[in-house]
Structures are given as C-alpha cells and as structure tokens.
C-alpha cells in the first residue's frame, strides 16, 4: 500500500529493461511503495509521487540507446509528470532514454574503450540542493556505486557544458582518475534546469545492501524516496 509514509514510485518497464526489479526492490527497502509500469500504459498510476526509468537495453539498444523507448506511450505521461514538477530519475538506460527524449541535456555514446564496463566507481557529489542528493548533505561528498554499461560516455559540446556547470546541474562526477568511459568533464549524472529530473549512469539500486558490496546507492535512492514522500 502506498500512502504518506510509503510514497508511490512508478518504475517504467520497457521491452529489454532488466534492472526494473532491482530498482523496485531497492525502493521498497528504502521505504517507498514501488510498482512496475509497462511502457504501453498511457498514464501513470494515480498518486504517483516519483518515476524511475530503470537500466537495461530497451528495444535492444537498436539505433541508439534510448532512441526508440522515448516514443513509448508512457513517455507522454512521464513528460507531462516532469513538466508538472514531478520527480523523475533515469538510471543507465533510463538516463539514455531521458537524454534522447530531450528531458535531460547531452547524449550517451559508446564507451571510449568500446568495451562493456562493469565495476565499482568512486563518485563526487556536487554541493548544493537537489532532491536526489539530500542524503549526501549540502556539502556534497563521495559515493562508491557500480557502473555497468557499454554506452556511458556522456557528451555535450563546450557551450552546453559551460552552461550546465554554471548552473550547477552536474550533480555527479566520476572522482579524478576514475572516469571509466571517456565521459566529458567526468560527468556521471546531470539534472534538468528545475532539478526535478535527474539521470545517472551508475546503478544506485545495485548498492543498497552491505551483502552486495555497499550501501552508497541508498544515498541517491533514499533521497528520492524522501523527496517523493514530501511530494505525495
């Protein structure tokens, strides 16, 4: 059951999503009521307080990662939800979908190494306020969260990068020397102008249990659950 104590988080499932159950489980663990929503749905469940686009390989990553998923019926509802100030988090493929949909800036390209990379990364959280990093404190901090992707190399031209940096919208970077994929300016995660939409390549849902290597992912997802609870 959802309610003020357990805000409802909709986890969108595209054909080829494969981290939706992990995301659901992590969100439940962190106090949300998480439901999986098939991409053909025209609407989000009533009382949805946040949306998560999970990792995976939507539509086989054909053409470009996320390029086809952005046209799924549910994305119109996600777009409207975001425009209304709703919280939307994209993880890995979800981040790719959000950039292709134009809800987040930049684009994710093949890793510089052309190899699939699956390992823990050290991340630096930008200081400042955002609903996705409140549990990290307003001073920022560092997190250890795994990445697993073939196309995680975020790209923006100099002009766009300067604009994002000036606005403090680059909420997450790979720590110095840790950039696994050639991402411009070590960007690991970026927010929209209103900071209610955020995408990141690392997988916080895979780092919420000490038995599985660490719990730093809870700082991101827990922040989201807190913000969703406040919004519910």
């Amino acid at each position, binding site marked *: 059951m959802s309610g003020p104590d357990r805000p409802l988080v909709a986890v969108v499932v595209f054909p080829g999503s494969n981290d939706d159950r992990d995301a659901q489980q992590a969100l439940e663990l962190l106090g949300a009521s998480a439901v999986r929503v098939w991409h053909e749905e025209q609407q989000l469940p009533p009382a949805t307080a946040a949306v998560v686009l999970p990792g995976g390989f939507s539509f086989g990553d054909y*053409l*470009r990662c996320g*390029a*086809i998923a952005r*046209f799924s019926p549910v994305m119109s509802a996600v777009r409207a939800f975001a425009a209304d100030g709703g919280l939307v988090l994209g993880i890995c493929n979800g981040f790719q979908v959000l950039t*292709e949909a134009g809800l987040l800036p*930049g*684009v994710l*390209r*093949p*890793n*510089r*190494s*052309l190899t699939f990379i699956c390992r823990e990364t050290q991340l630096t959280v930008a200081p400042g306020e955002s609903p996705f990093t409140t549990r990290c404190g307003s001073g920022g901090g560092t997190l250890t969260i795994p990445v697993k992707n073939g196309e995680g*190399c975020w*790209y*923006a*031209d100099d002009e766009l990068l300067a604009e994002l940096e000036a606005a403090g919208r680059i909420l997450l970077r790979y720590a110095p020397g840790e950039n696994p994929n*050639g991402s411009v300016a070590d960007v690991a995660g970026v927010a929209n102008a209103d900071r209610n939409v955020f995408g990141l390549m690392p997988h916080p849902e895979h780092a919420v249990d000490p038995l599985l290597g660490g719990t730093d992912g809870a700082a991101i997802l827990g922040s989201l659950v807190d913000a969703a609870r406040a919004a519910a």
Partner: protein
Amino acid sequence: MLVRPKPGILDPQGQAVESSLRHLGFAVEGARVGRLVDVELTTDDPVEARAALERMCEQLLANPLIEGYEIEFPEHTSP
C-alpha cells in the same frame, strides 16, 4: 539516409576501424563509422518523399547533438 558522427565528435568505432585497417597494412589517416538506413516509401512524389525523409532523420534516425545526415535518392526507383 546516411547518418554519421559530426566532425570533431569522438568516434571510438571509427578509431577501432582505423587501427585495424592500419594493422592490415593499409595507409589510412582516419576512419569514421556511420549508419546507412534504406527505406522504401509508398509515395511517388519526390518532394513529399524528401520532406518525409528529412523528418525521419530529425525525429529518430539522427541525434542532432552528435550526428549529421545526408539523404540520397537512387537513380532508378522500382516501379
């Protein structure tokens, strides 16, 4: 429709191809890898066809941040 990385955009696939061609002994100074999309249209009107192809590239086939595109018509279209 030919879609390929814009000049100046890092193209790791092109770099890998370039490196491989060099290993084979070819004197190559650069390689870029793009994507060719062939479509068959139902219209006979070349103006309408070109407009549709443009929209396809803009909406789906190319990401304008990183890719440019060219549109080519075959010299002989099948009846």
